[in-house]
């Protein structure tokens, strides 16, 4: 495989591996934990490195997972004191842990290729040059092998615990009462996030992990209401962002990870505007057509409310609509015209009266409440 294909393959695997836990983070309103964890895993990685002296060792993954779980535990601990809100706890814990990591590197590993730049930023472009040799056979880029393993772990976990995850995401209290130990699941999910983050940081750095864990699922969230489709769409958008990002970076000769994050963001923007149903454009169109419908309803209800009352004479005139309903002249005329056209009201000079159909519509509309 050419390096270009390998890079894209790695990128896609990273994207899908991130989208899986990311979907649950987004739904559980814990998106920022991806940011916190992807930085806080640093000390765990460094300590594991001190033990093994091998950047490729599986102990790194364990170290990272432990770090991630530690982060969550510390945040919980701080929150339980009642002295600190959860977001403040997060904002203090992860920089502290990250600082510990940086200090460890600077003091004890300054000459080694454990570079802060790489942790934060990563550089996919070099990935194809770092091969994974198993018994003398070149299996592929190391990043690809690692990330595939991570992806498998993610998949297995999510498939096996899908029911439980779904329940704890949407109703933690119910899950607890059914004996599903939401707290345990929570920690395991965070462990997954840590493992994914460490697997990815070598290739793409922690910022891209955040982008891929949050942006594609958020886009998916605007496109569907159901969990399984949301996960599939997240993976799809993530993969597309990965490939699109790669070519964008090639065109500009710039950071691949950064480009992937940018494309994921651009995808999000597109979805925000163009999503069917929930997209802003769709909402605007609906609002325009609904405005007139709304106007007719308001008109008949207004007439209905004031029918037969002493002020009816005053309140049921066209000019009054403009004054008190704050309709501009144009809209008031349109509302009146379209109501007359649908036989909802009759007009005598400037006085408006309900027809039987109009009265029925008013009653129906009121029952809706």
């Amino acid at each position, binding site marked *: 495989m050419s390096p270009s294909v390998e890079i894209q393959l790695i990128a896609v695997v990273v994207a899908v591996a991130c989208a899986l836990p990311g979907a649950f983070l987004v739904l559980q309103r814990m998106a920022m934990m991806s940011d916190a964890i992807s930085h806080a895993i640093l000390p765990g990685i460094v300590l594991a490195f001190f033990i093994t002296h091998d950047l490729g060792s599986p102990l790194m993954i364990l170290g990272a997972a432990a770090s991630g779980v530690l982060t969550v535990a510390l945040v919980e601990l701080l929150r339980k004191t009642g002295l600190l809100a959860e977001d403040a706890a997060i904002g203090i814990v992860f920089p502290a842990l990250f600082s510990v990591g940086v200090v460890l590197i600077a003091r004890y590993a300054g000459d080694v290729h454990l570079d802060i730049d790489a942790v934060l930023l990563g550089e996919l472009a070099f990935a194809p040059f770092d091969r994974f040799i198993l018994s003398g056979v070149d299996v592929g880029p190391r990043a690809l092998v690692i990330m595939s393993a991570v992806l498998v772990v993610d998949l297995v976990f999510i498939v096996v615990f899908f029911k439980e995850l779904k329940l704890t995401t949407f109703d933690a209290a119910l899950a607890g009462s059914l004996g599903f130990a939401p707290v345990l699941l929570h920690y395991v999910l965070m462990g997954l996030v840590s493992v994914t983050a460490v697997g990815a940081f070598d290739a793409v750095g922690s910022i891209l992990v955040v982008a891929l864990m949050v942006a594609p699922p958020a886009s998916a969230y605007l496109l569907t209401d159901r969990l399984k489709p949301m996960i599939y769409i997240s993976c799809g958008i993530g993969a597309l962002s990965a490939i699109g990002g790669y070519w964008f970076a090639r065109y500009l000769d710039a950071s691949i990870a950064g480009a992937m994050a940018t494309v994921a963001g651009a995808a999000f923007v597109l979805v925000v505007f163009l999503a069917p149903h929930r997209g802003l454009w769709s909402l605007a169109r609906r609002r325009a057509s609904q405005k007139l419908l709304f106007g007719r309803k308001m008109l008949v*209800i207004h007439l209905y*409310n004031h029918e037969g009352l002493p002020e009816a004479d005053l309140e049921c*005139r066209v000019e009054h609509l403009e004054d*008190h309903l704050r309709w501009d002249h144009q809209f008031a005329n349109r509302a009146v015209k379209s109501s007359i056209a649908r036989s909802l009201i009759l007009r005598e000079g400037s006085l408006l009266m309900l027809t039987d159909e109009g009265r029925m519509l008013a009653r129906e509309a009121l029952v809706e*409440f």
Partner: protein
Amino acid sequence: MDSRPNLNKRMDHAIDVRDLTVAYREKPVLWDVDLQVPAGVLLAIVGPNGAGKTTLIKSILGLIKSAAGSVLIHGRPYSEQRSSVAYVPQRGSVDWDFPTNVLDVVTMGLYGKLGWIRRPGKAERVEALKALAQVGMEEFADRQISQLSGGQQQRVFLARALVQDARVYFMDEPFQGVDATTERAIVDLLRSLREKGRTVVVVHHDLQTVPEYFDRVMLLNVRRIASGTVPEVFNEENLRATYGGRVAFVSALATPDDH
């Protein structure tokens, strides 16, 4: 016939709301609500959850945008009459762990009078203490607000409104979750405001006490079901129209005249 409402008549009312409509994402929350309240009365707004009671208060005060309608306070638009109107929001709307004390919260009621940048001084302190005395909380002036009970918190909010010496008061569920003593104190306070000719509108959650505490009542469920004096309007028919089912509990509340 003059098609515009008689302006002189509108001047009589302390509060004059016409055709107030509030929508949230194309769903109406308040629809075409009218409310005229003369000066010197205590009015309760009642209705089921989601009826729009808090929305009504907030949209009168301009905190929520309305789709239609107008609000006059003593004949002038609300935006010109802010200094005549005081607001007591729900207790749960602030974080009581905020680092401040009782006196400070009450003094906030005077910020409008102070205007931009000016800091509260001795004169303001005296006024705030006076307001605290009216609600029986002068000894608590230096107390951190997180150490207050529910009833005490409510009194502090009331003092904050009293210090404004407004003509019209809007209160959102001031009796919710307070002890019996505080409840009596609040009722006494409301009555003394009425004696002075002030107008008080209260979103009230407890139907049982409406006849005892209030002169007037408005029944609201997205639209106005009825409003007027308690004997006129607080009856089984209107309550049922407002609350839907729940007939048994409703009939126990109706004023004796209807049986």
